[in-house]
């Protein structure tokens, strides 16, 4: 468990690094909350008015003071106030997070349900027609941008059938599960398809590697049925790269799927952070990025733990 403790200790350090990077990056971009709110009308402000607005948005102090204050508040569990929402940042994030989490979970399930069987199937038919078909399909799935696939789905449904999942008026899962799933299925499919494509490719190549291992040959030589060799002996060992990739992708998805949320008008984290950047809502951007980084690291930690469960050889090394 040495590695684990070391990684846990690195957690706050990485978060500190991320926070200071974001803090500076968002301030380096030209424009601030004042120009974001007023646009070109900001030119009409008198110096006294500018000063008053800068104080209101917390921009009147040097960066280092702003950062110190933000960090101090953070240590007390306070992520600050969003100037757009006029509410505490953490509350705003937590209000948007369930949708993002649900979308990520649904996409992961879709991707696993398609990607793993397809990859295994392709590996067992290596270099035959079926393998080729799966690989071409995966290539197309991976290289189609989500905005193309998403818009195509919307167009086909609304123009072809005159139906469309309700956009904008979002129904949370716990309020109206059916309506919610109706709204989430298309975005989840859009994200899941690309995700499934990369999983297929990884699962296929991992499977091919494992199938050429000595223990598989031994199992086959001992007359274990082919199906059992694949699903019992080979697959669990081929799952490590699949779990790694799933973990990384899932971690990304927890940060919000900006493009898909934009197309389907889902009020998730991705759109929120994009709007926050455009409106120069510094506290909200900082808080959200920190939240996303934390989730990403947490997921990766869980992935590492999963290795222990999956591969006895790693467990042995401790």
């Amino acid at each position, binding site marked *: 468990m040495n590695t684990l403790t070391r990684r846990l200790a690195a957690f706050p350090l990485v978060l500190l690094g991320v926070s200071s990077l974001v803090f500076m990056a968002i301030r380096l971009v030209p*424009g601030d909350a004042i120009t974001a*709110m007023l646009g070109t009308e900001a030119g009409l402000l008198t110096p*006294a008015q500018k000063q008053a607005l800068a104080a209101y948005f917390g921009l009147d102090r040097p960066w280092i003071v702003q950062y110190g204050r933000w960090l101090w508040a953070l240590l007390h569990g306070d992520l600050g106030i969003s100037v757009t929402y006029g509410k505490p940042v953490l509350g705003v994030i937590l209000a948007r997070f369930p949708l993002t989490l649900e979308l990520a979970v649904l996409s992961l399930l879709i991707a696993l349900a398609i990607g793993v069987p397809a990859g295994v199937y392709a590996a067992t038919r290596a270099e035959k027609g079926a393998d080729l078909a799966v690989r071409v399909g995966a290539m197309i799935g991976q290289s189609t941008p989500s905005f193309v696939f998403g818009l195509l789905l919307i167009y086909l449904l609304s123009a072809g059938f005159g139906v469309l999942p309700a956009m904008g008026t979002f129904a949370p899962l716990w309020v109206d599960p059916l309506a919610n799933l109706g709204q989430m299925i298309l975005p989840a499919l859009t994200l899941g398809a690309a995700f499934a494509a990369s999983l297929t490719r990884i699962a296929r190549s991992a499977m091919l590697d494992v199938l050429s291992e000595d223990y598989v040959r031994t199992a086959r030589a001992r007359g274990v049925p082919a199906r059992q060799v694949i699903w019992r002996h080979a697959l669990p060992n081929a799952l490590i790269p699949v779990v790694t990739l799933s973990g990384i992708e899932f971690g990304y998805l927890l940060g919000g799927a900006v493009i898909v949320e934009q197309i389907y008008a889902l*009020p998730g984290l991705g759109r929120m952070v994009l709007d926050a950047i*455009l409106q120069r809502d510094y506290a909200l951007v900082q808080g959200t990025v920190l939240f996303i980084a934390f989730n990403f690291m947490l997921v990766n930690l869980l992935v590492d733990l999963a290795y222990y469960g999956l591969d006895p050889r790693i467990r042995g090394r401790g």
Partner: protein
Amino acid sequence: MTRHLNGLSSLALAALLVAPALAPAQAATLKMAWSQDATGLDPQKQTAFSSIRLLELIYEPLVRLDAKLNVVPAIAKSWEFSADGLSLTFHLDPKAAFSDGAPVTSADVKASFQRLLDEKTGAAARSNYTSIAAIDTPDAQTVVFRLSQPDVPILAALAGVNAAVLPAAAIADGSVGTKAIGSGPFMLASWDPNAREVLTANPHWAGGKTGVDEIDISVLPDETGILAALRAGQIDLALLNDPLVATLVPKEQGLTLVRTPSISYNVLQLNPARKPMTELKVRQAISCAIDRKAVLDTAALGEGQVTGPITVPAYATDPAKLFCYTPDLAKAKALMKDAGYPDGFSATVIAATGEPATAEAEAQVMQAELKQIGIKLDIKMMELNVYVDAWLKGDFDMAVALNGGRPDPYTMYNRYFTKTGNLLKVSNYTDDTLDSLLNEARVTTDPAKRKDLFAQFDTHLAEVSPWIWLFTPYTYVAERANVQGFVPTPTGSLYGLSAVTLK
């Protein structure tokens, strides 16, 4: 404090009285969508169209503009300037009330304007009202603005939501930006920024009963998504910005597109502080080389009207009479030669991505047109905020812009082209003629005389060509057949929604 308590108790009383009326058998809900949401709830401070659209439904100014841009009553039933033009008196509608039931009194008006004029508030619109020297309130229904100098355009400037009347109590307790309490037709029931907002009818609105009980607005960031939602019947009415999407609407059965000529204008701003735009002949050559109709037709599918500097119909000059509005390449080349640039020059034009939707296409068409007189344009697309930052600093050779129009040309151009204009560092151009014409129009009360002054201003400005005015766009409202009675205005106001009914 007393007032505050009164407000609360009358609110409770009102809730008791109207509770049955608030829950009719079936509440009519208008489902709306737009792609850009409001950025805040303080009507005095917000300047973005997207914020003003929403706030105009919740707050009311003393007067408003009708569909022909005439000043008509809102909170004030009538008004008059004194003979010397140094005072402006408003008589308030005794029925006017805030959504919490408290009546709108002269004290609220006074408190609102004191807040607006206080530099600590940080209201950009303050500059339109700085001639207000004092505010008298002889009785609860009368307000007298004492002006430091005659100011005719102030009346039209008072018609905007930036001059909205707020409850004095909300100003005192600092809740203006958080709780939206106004005297407009609707009140804000909920607001989830950049996602959704719900408005309900204000039972105390002096205008009577609204056509619908509720407006449910979704923010759908992608306009093609809005079109799909309209088609699928999820949305009754939507605002659109992109002509490429809007022109698809009439092709759909059951959808109608309402086009309204706007008073805002698309323009190529030259920077006369930078060489060689410092030269009058160079600027004029650019004006002669650009085919405004071609820019409109190619970049915006012909969706708009070629315009001179003044866009308000009552004061605008026929564009055909303005300098070089008929493209003249030979003249342009001759001017370039006279100015000492026979082989042209290179310059950078900045534009904001998606603001307006046609910005990049406009820049490309003009790039091709200016190439004919040897000017090599380098197009630099920027994120809106980055663009605004560069624009405010005057840090550009040329800029493609969509600037807002005002009902009075003085208010519209004073900021750019008088010697005391606060945006002089953006326009970098003024001269004695422009300055004196605008300042004279400010104090002139005779409408015919004003019209003449603005016509001279329009003609002169087009001739000295600090900017190349291109076209006014349309504002678009797409509606399903069940929506009835929406009246649009050239300012893009959605106030007409108060009369909309659903079939």
